[in-house]
């Protein structure tokens, strides 16, 4: 079955495959599916293959190895740096940690209008609409997508770097003390 999975991963490429799909296609239960994935991953690792099994953006994908990056970079002539802007990163971070969130709330947190950045992110497929808020005017709610996770090399939302709990604004005292401890290194 591992061989079939290998083929499936090849066919799917960067679309990847989910455990549910593996279960369905191979007609096996969840536990077995997990085992098959694990075995194939182990096979690739143990035999030092050029590819490896990765879990990115909530799907299983066949990828190259970080160790070999220099060779691929030689293949892809010239640097084609195409990174996101600071504004885009900031906005994505805000959405990822507060989703679902309205544009107004994003604007408020950033202190500037975010409509343009948000449009770009929607067009890139890193963010999508997910219903309407109960707030006055029923503004649209946004959340991040699996493509967003993959873009940052994250397996799932649980992989997001941890952030101190957003504390209630009603308790400014607590907020001060906790930030003090966390941010102590920035200035003595």
């Amino acid at each position, binding site marked *: 079955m591992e061989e079939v999975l290998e083929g499936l991963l*090849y*066919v*799917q*490429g*960067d*679309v990847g495959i989910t455990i549910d799909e593996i279960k369905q296609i191979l007609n096996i239960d969840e536990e077995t599916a997990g085992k098959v994935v694990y075995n194939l991953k182990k096979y690739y690792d143990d035999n030092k293959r050029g590819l490896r099994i*990765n879990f*990115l953006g909530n799907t299983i*994908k*066949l*990828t*190259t*190895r*970080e160790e070999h*990056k220099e060779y*691929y970079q030689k293949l892809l002539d010239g640097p084609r740096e195409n*990174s*996101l802007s*600071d*504004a885009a*990163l*900031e906005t*994505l*971070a*805000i959405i990822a*940690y507060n989703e679902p969130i309205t544009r107004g709330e994003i604007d408020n*947190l*950033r*202190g*500037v*209008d975010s409509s*343009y950045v948000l*449009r770009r992110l*929607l*067009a890139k*497929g890193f963010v999508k609409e997910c219903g309407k808020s109960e707030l006055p005017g029923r503004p649209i709610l946004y959340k991040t997508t699996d493509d967003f996770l*993959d*873009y*940052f*090399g*994250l397996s799932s939302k649980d992989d997001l*770097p941890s*952030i*101190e709990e*957003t504390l209630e*604004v009603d308790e*400014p005292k607590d*907020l*001060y003390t906790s*930030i*003090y401890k966390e*941010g102590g290194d*920035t*200035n003595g």
Partner: protein
Amino acid sequence: MDYISIDNFEGPLDLLLHLVKESNIDICDIKIEEITDKYLDYIKHEDNLNINISSSYLIMASELMYLKSKSLLPKNNVEEETDEELTRENLVNRLLEYKKYKELTETFREMEQSRKEIFIKGPEKYSNYVEEHRSNEESVDVLIEAFKKFLERKEKDRPLETTITRKEYSVNVRKNSIKNILRKKGKVTLDELIEEDSKPYLVVTFLGILEMVKEKDITILQNKNFEQILIELRS
């Protein structure tokens, strides 16, 4: 003080954070008077403020001035209690909250970079694996769905400012082109004549057909209700 161009900041909060950092104080200890003066100084120094960008900076400036004036006035502790949004505490909280995400962007930047170290090939051409191309209506629906989605995304990708030019259609020109089509093909369905999907185009096409019927250049046939409408050149 070094003046970094305001373009390098992501907004008033970012600028404030920079000013706080520069004066080496903890956000929680900021003095409204001091920070307000610095902020205004900065804004004044920036001589080519773009109105679109600057409005948010100016709002912040007015908020700061309000806070400053309040802090300078003798405390009138009986009146005006809490529920105001503009308080020092509120500002501090906003700054702290913003700082949190600002710092995270660096982490995201690193993650972005390291993800670029691995590559994944695109999916295989699925048609290579499908035995026979099934062209039933279901697949057309799927195609339409996909196209709609593409249009939606395209719409979002569209620049915010666009110029719209109006295309002029003439009934006479259209009549001639319909005649040419009919000469070539003999008999066509109405659908075949509609190649473009715009209102003016449709209207001009219909007007052209109607005029040509009136002038007895063409005949229109329909065998049964709801069947294809056929158009034929009269000899």
